[in-house]
């Protein structure tokens, strides 16, 4: 338990540090919102006046603490461009992105576990080597490229799934699922090629352990022994990779949202960047960074439950 509390303290500390760095970085950017709102022909006095009105000329630390105080209670400020609260604009998009990343994580595991295990078990045979080679190839494919090909094949040619767009889960579960198949598939395939390589080497490690040999000696088949005694041991090392890959997945999701015209955080972020709507940029970047930190914190905690040797040390 103590170990978990220390992890929690580190986690909260890194949330705070991240918020400061993000605020500092967006404020250091040249050309603030006042410049943008008034355009290039504005007179300096007008810009100064607007800055005054928006509170931009107050000390940096005061503005940071004011923003942070809002964020803590769920108020990310108000967009100067749209005049609407940032929280209200981000929240539905956060849900969309969370579905995309969450389902892609599950999807990539569903592909990577059997593929990696097959490549490991058949590593001395032609088919196992072929599986490894194909998944290596997947590493070189950007997710948007995979997305475009999925659209060409399954949306344009076969017309099984819509080529883009999004329907909320709360409006129609069926439509929601149909619209997510291709983008989630594109993200999963690319992600799975990375993860399956880790699965392959983790499975090969397990095949050489004494407990795997014991499992075989009591009557398990190779696959049975792997499922029963390998999976949990593999998941311990795999968890680290999944935690690290979530960042890649978030970046991949931003691009995939563009390909499939999905109203997620990524597309909103890109729009805000082009409009110089720094309050929204700040908010979305903060949400993304905090999400990565949260997932890695959860990975750390999950270790304690998966590895009984750690659980005892923590007790």
């Amino acid at each position, binding site marked *: 338990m103590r170990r978990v509390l220390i992890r929690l303290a580190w986690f909260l500390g890194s949330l705070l540090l991240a918020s400061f760095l993000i605020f500092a970085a967006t404020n250091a950017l040249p050309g603030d919102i006042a410049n943008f709102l008034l355009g290039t022909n504005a007179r300096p006095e007008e810009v100064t006046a607007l800055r005054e009105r928006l509170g931009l000329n107050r000390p940096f630390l005061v503005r940071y603490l004011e923003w942070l105080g809002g964020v803590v209670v769920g108020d990310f400020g108000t967009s100067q461009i749209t005049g609407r609260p940032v929280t209200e604009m981000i929240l539905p998009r956060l849900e969309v992105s969370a579905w995309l990343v969450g389902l892609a994580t599950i999807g990539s595991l569903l592909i990577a576990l059997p593929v990696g295990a097959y490549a490991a078990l058949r590593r*001395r045979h032609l088919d196992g080597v072929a599986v490894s080679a194909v998944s290596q190839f997947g590493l070189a494919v950007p997710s948007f490229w995979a997305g475009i090909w999925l659209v060409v094949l399954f949306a344009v040619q076969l017309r099984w799934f819509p080529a883009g767009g999004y329907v909320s889960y709360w409006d129609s579960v069926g439509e929601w699922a149909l619209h997510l198949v291709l983008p989630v598939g594109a993200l999963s395939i690319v992600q799975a090629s990375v993860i399956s390589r880790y699965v392959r080497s983790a499975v090969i490690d397990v095949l050489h*352990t*004494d*407990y795997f*040999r*014991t*499992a*075989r*000696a*009591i*009557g*398990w*088949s190779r696959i049975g022994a792997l499922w*029963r*005694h390998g999976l*949990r*041991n593999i998941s*311990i090392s795999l968890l680290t990779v999944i935690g690290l890959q979530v960042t890649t997945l978030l970046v991949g999701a931003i691009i995939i949202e563009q390909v499939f015209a999905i109203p997620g955080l990524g597309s909103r972020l890109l729009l805000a960047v082009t409009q110089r709507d720094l309050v929204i940029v700040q908010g979305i970047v903060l949400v993304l960074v905090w999400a990565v930190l949260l997932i890695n914190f959860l990975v750390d905690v999950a270790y304690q439950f*998966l*590895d*009984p*040797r750690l659980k*005892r040390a923590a007790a």
Partner: protein
Amino acid sequence: MSFLEVDDLTVRFGDTVAVDHVGFAVEDTGRLGIIGASGSGKSVTSLAIAGLLSETARVTGSIRLDGQELVGLREREYRELRGSKLSMIFQEPMTALDPTMRVGRQIAEVIALHERRSGKRLTVEAELARVGIRDPQRVGESFPHQLSGGQRQRALIAMAIINRPGLVICDEPTTALDVLVQKQILGLLDEVLTDRAALFVSHDLAVVREVCRHIIVMEHGRIVEQGDVDDVIATPEHEYTARLVAAARGTL
């Protein structure tokens, strides 16, 4: 007819011959010690009998267990035999158990895997008590890292004998244990192996002499000497055996 009959057994890994035309027999309550240095082919021989060699190994010759030919046996049928008709005890009790699973569940698994055939419902705790574990309930609920080396090896012995196999193959079962525990485990093995055939693989003459009367000595994949363990120690015929005896002189 003996319970285990090995004839002309040869194991190749590519061009390397690991076991070279080896033959021996063990009666249904007999014991045979296999002595040799590492690389002599003694472990490969025992793994070949259990059918647990890697897929790169090429096995020829004959291994008959209770009249059934094992060389070339289909994996599905081999699997049925392992853990029920023949079982193994390995060297490293620390790593031979799954670190993420409670010991009791690992033992219960051996029963469950062969339930249909054996038809017996034995409790895990009774089995742990049988191998001399004093608090079987606690040990059953523990993870491997929470037990001593001796307790772990006892748990592995329980797993090996739980389905009353006709043949138990012990591959260096005491090598990783300290001397006092080694004595206890050898005593336990002597007891639980009385009514079945056993192969006892070790590099240590003194250990093998504790449990076996008959031994074979292997070098470079061949049997170089065999006979009664005391005769072999008293009058080693082969030069390699003589060196082995001389090296073990202090412990004999």
